[in-house]
């Protein structure tokens, strides 16, 4: 979707602010969100959509007013409700309870085996390459144009690349194709390439001098130029 998350090339967000000696989590709840999200992987709550699409589907004002972990919290909560793990009413009641009992803490449930499984996800190497998807149609040096697609569903082809011409610099193998349409329909794996674009092709005379942009393009994102 052409959502606010697709912000490459936008102006107006100001300078980049660097925080020295930044903690991993600024607030305790941020770490809990991270852990809950990781723990829910086994419940498959992000299908048919994925976690990313769930974050992207926040309305633009909601997206921009939320921090990274607030977005993850909202997306996780929405997915858990959609999947039927919990209900909106349960959340409302529980919110009210913790509001009235600020010192109360969530109940604890210890399960060493479950933690072991989750730690495996954290440390496991899960290769991206797939045996299916066919042979690559493009090769090193091929000129390609990014397609002008504007799907309502999830895509990894950002707006600033669409319609632009670049050069294939590497074939990475075949990966799962990430696009998911509004019916939750996915497609088979595809060849994926690193494609190089000249900054002037992307930004015209506003481009900085002597700059290249590299981005990963699934085969379905490009056509011969």
């Amino acid at each position, binding site marked *: 979707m052409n959502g606010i998350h*697709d*912000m*490459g*090339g936008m102006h107006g*967000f100001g*300078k*980049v*602010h*660097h925080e020295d000696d930044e903690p*991993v989590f600024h*607030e*305790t*709840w941020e*770490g*809990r*969100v*991270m852990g*809950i999200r*990781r*723990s829910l992987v086994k419940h498959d709550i992000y299908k048919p959509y994925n976690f*990313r699409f769930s974050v992207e589907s926040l309305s633009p004002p909601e997206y*921009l007013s939320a921090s*990274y*972990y*607030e977005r993850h919290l909202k997306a996780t909560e929405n997915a*858990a409700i959609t999947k039927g*793990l*919990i209900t909106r009413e349960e*959340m409302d009641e*529980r*919110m009210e309870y*913790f509001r009235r009992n600020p010192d109360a803490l*969530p*109940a*604890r*449930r210890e*399960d060493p085996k*479950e*933690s072991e499984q*989750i*730690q495996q*996800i*954290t*440390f*496991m*190497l899960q*290769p991206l390459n797939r045996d299916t998807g066919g042979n690559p149609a493009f090769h090193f040096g091929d000129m390609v144009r990014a397609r002008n697609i504007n799907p309502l569903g999830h895509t*990894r082809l*950002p707006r600033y690349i669409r319609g632009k011409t670049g050069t294939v610099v590497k074939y990475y193998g075949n990966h*799962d194709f*990430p696009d998911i349409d509004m019916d939750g329909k996915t497609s088979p794996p595809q060849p*994926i390439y690193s494609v190089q674009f000249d900054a002037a092709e992307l930004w015209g005379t*506003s481009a*900085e001098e*002597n*700059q*290249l942009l*590299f981005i*990963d393009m*699934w085969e379905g994102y490009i056509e011969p130029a």
Partner: protein
Amino acid sequence: MSTEEHHHHDESYAELRTKALESLLVEKGLIATNAIDDVVRTYEQDIGPMNGAKVVAKAWTDQEYKKRLLEEGTSAIAEVGFTGAQGAQIVVLENTDDIHNMVVCTLCSCYPWPVLGLPPSWYKSEAYRSRAVVEPRAVLQDFGLELDPAINVRVWDSNSEIRYMVLPQRPAGTDGMTEEELIPLVNRDSMIGVAVVEPPTQKS
């Protein structure tokens, strides 16, 4: 209402919601408290830029390893012991006298967790995500890094599941240093490509 008040309000609201969500899922037996504790502790203590620094120092002192690292980043990094979520395929980009690589994720905040840990706030900021692809030199100036116009700036937008990590240049004056001695010189930002590694004399 000031931005600060608003932020504060939202923070405590997020804290409440997180408590509510965790407590419901725990009580339904869907998640385990200690599993969450372990995820938090792992990213706070065990997975961070010190991992990437080990990879970089090894590449600086072992030409054969460096070759493998640039050719097949994922397996070379696994040799040093780092694998896992958000690191299924890691491509390492070498900075040279002529080429400066920097990494961004415009659509999200994708980042090579096994080698760098969780991303810093600035990497996740709208300012960095929006500007890095269109005015990288101006962004580097925000970090105090002024690049020679002759240097080719290469920005990598991490839009797929492949993750990118920069191999910064080994600083001058470190010829006699061992791999172990080099590790602490390597800062996180240099492996994202928004900083260089400074010679040790300037560190004290």
